[in-house]
């Protein structure tokens, strides 16, 4: 039996909603089949007021062993480093976060806000929000660079806005079933099993990407969304086209560009106004090229690919 406690900071509850939609395994499977005991969760917990405070304190004292501490949302530090803007169970949430992280075997940050600060940490960051162990790209965040949970692992980051439900439940099951040793994390402490490949891996529009046939409007049944509609699939690490959303489809399959929500820069507030869904170009060449590709190579390759594109690539395809 693994005790799990889930708290929310500066959050919209999106990751909770996503988690409750999990299917493989489902949130119920976690309890019935995988021995996860949910001590408390903002949407599922029964305790209120002093009872909840007592539960949190018993985790901190060690009377109730805390195996997995899940945090959703940013850690709010305003005003003046006090964290008073986000009070919970009688004190600033950040104080609970610090003390619970210190006693937990594993700490899991869910969603962009908990991992990198996300939308609340966008400049000018009025709530002085931080991610658990990162602030955007910068290592450290709220808990600091040296933080490690009792298991020895740093915060396990599962980014996304929100993160896919199965990424959450599969990691929780791995941890609860003693297979955390199999987890390897990348430079942003994301499990490599999910975040080594790109959103583009498995996208049904890859042939259009290769032949440089562009979609020019949302939802078109042909064309790649990179060239005109700002798709960040070739530079975003996520398994969105391997582990499908609702087990059916993905944003790019349905004709919507990937916004790069698993990367620390999301939501890319340095984009020029009006360019969220528009590929930014400099002298006609995309400003952000696919990871590992340089401008000269890109221009040569796309010119050649375009010349070789077959007729079918210009016609509607079933891409759902």
């Amino acid at each position, binding site marked *: 039996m693994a005790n799990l406690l889930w708290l929310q900071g500066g959050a919209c509850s999106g990751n909770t909603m996503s988690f409750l939609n999990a299917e493989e395994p489902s949130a119920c499977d976690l309890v019935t089949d995988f021995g996860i005991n949910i001590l408390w969760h903002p949407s599922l917990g029964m305790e209120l007021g002093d009872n909840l405070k007592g539960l949190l304190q018993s985790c901190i004292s060690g009377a109730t062993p805390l195996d997995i501490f899940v945090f959703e949302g940013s850690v709010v530090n305003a005003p003046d480093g006090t964290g008073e803007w986000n009070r919970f169970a009688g004190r600033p949430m950040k104080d609970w976060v610090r003390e619970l992280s210190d006693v937990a075997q594993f700490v899991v940050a869910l969603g962009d806000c908990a991992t990198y600060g996300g939308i609340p940490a966008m400049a000018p960051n009025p709530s002085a929000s931080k991610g658990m162990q990162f602030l955007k790209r910068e290592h450290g965040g709220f808990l600091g660079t040296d933080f490690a949970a009792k298991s020895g692992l740093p915060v396990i980051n599962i980014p996304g806005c929100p993160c896919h439900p199965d990424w959450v439940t599969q990691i929780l099951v791995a941890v609860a079933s003693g297979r955390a040793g199999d987890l390897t994390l990348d430079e942003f402490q994301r499990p490599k099993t999910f975040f080594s490949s790109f959103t583009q891996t498995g996208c049904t529009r890859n042939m259009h990407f290769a032949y440089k*046939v562009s979609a020019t409007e949302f939802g078109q049944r042909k064309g790649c969304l990179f*060239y005109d509609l700002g798709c960040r699939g070739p530079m975003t690490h996520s398994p969105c086209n391997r582990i499908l959303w609702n087990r059916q489809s993905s944003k790019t399959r349905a004709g919507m560009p990937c916004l790069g929500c698993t990367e620390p820069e999301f939501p890319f507030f340095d984009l020029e106004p009006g*360019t969220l869904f528009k590929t930014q*170009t400099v002298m*006609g*060449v995309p400003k952000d090229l696919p990871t590992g590709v340089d401008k000269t190579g890109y221009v040569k390759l796309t010119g050649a690919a*375009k010349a070789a594109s077959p007729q079918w690539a*210009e016609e509607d395809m079933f891409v759902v």
Partner: protein
Amino acid sequence: MSDDAIRAEAEDLLKNGLQTDVFPRADDQTQIQEIIYQLQNGDGSLKERLVVGGFTLDPVSHEGLEQACETCMYYLVHRRYCELPELDVPVEAEWSCRLWRI
């Protein structure tokens, strides 16, 4: 009108000296938006699209890149067509306009 007929009409206009706004090229987002705005708020005629788009019958070399429809991402190779919604016009591979992007 068929694609061929519209393409021929465009070619005639350009060959007969229609002055188009070849420069400045749309080098950044602001310039792109300005040209697109002009196109969206114009009368939509073929002549106006050619003028505002800055069409030429030959590729324009700009900042070391040859900007021809042939390599532009809005160009449909087999239909010989510009699919940029604001232009939406049959073209030839060696034509060019200032909204070119690769």
